[in-house]
């Protein structure tokens, strides 16, 4: 991640992601956007989706880096055989938002050295809450220096 955007921009974009897929109004808005525009589909890249949803760092140079990082996910494996991380995210969000009971989504990271794949799971994302989330965790390599 540090190869694409500055360390300080990572929490900013993570917070934005988690706010936009949070329980209540934010999730309702995502469900409605998906229903109206089918935004999470393989016709759109994650970078395009992220741009349409305005989920990106505010700083223009960091935005570029973020979109590049999302493209890079096409070269990252996922926990589903023969599916790259980019497509896994799009499919997981599409299925969730179009399901009978969509769940809030929590985005996080894990060290690539522990698990090289992007993972999608269900569980309690927040230790202080019983709300169940879809949890999407992307592998991150440590940035040099």
């Amino acid at each position: 991640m540090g190869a694409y955007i500055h360390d300080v921009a990572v929490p900013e974009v993570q917070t934005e992601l988690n706010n936009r897929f949070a329980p209540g109004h934010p999730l309702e808005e995502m469900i409605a956007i998906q229903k109206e525009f089918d935004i999470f589909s393989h016709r759109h890249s994650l970078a395009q989706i992220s741009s349409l949803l305005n989920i990106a760092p505010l700083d223009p140079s960091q935005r570029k880096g973020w979109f590049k990082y999302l493209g890079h996910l096409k070269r990252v494996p996922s926990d589903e055989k023969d599916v790259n991380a980019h497509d896994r995210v799009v499919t997981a969000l599409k299925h969730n938002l179009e399901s009978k009971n969509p769940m809030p989504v929590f985005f996080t990271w894990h060290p690539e050295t522990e698990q090289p794949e992007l993972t999608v799971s269900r569980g309690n994302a927040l230790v202080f809450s019983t709300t169940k989330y879809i949890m999407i965790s992307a592998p991150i390599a440590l940035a040099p220096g």
Partner: protein
Amino acid sequence: MQQPRGTVRDYYSAKLKRHGAGPRGVDWSSTASQFLRFAQLMKICDFGKPFSLNDFGCGYGALLAYLADRHASAVVTYRGIDIAPGMIEAARDRWKQTPRIEFVAGSECGSKADYSVASGVFNVRLGWAVAVWEAYVKSILSDLHANSRIGFSVNFMSPQDDPASGENLYRVPPDRWSEFCTDELGCEVERVSGYGLPEFTLLVRCVG
């Protein structure tokens, strides 16, 4: 003494300066949520035949992007009106190659069209007393009615349980302005809600 129109102009001029001609420059979180609102507002229009449209509070002309994306074959004669001159400049610059459009700076429609739409123009109350703000809303709804041959559409933020929304925002139950449009303007009103945003849209059809 400054009236709401003056503070609205200053507010959106400052937003444009800070965020540029994009969703945040007009207080929307994203292009997708803007489009979601436009999808409701444009339900007033019959896309089966050519029509003219006033876009009141047009900002940088985001509705044109929606029309190009969702109704590319529609023949729409478009007039965008905005109180902030900077927005009009940004809109003219962005859409200079597009046929059948004009942008004018102003606080009234200024010309009659088949339909008029106004997205998000009532939401930010900027600390004005409710009575003053509602007089402002009334004047805009009356202007939209006077300048729409077939109908117009507007949106309002719904009341929230959270009292922390402050004095900056105007939230109102649908009855308040739905009844104004039927009783005072003599129109038929259709309410649209439950589209994923904490707001509702009024589709107002002019009768007779």
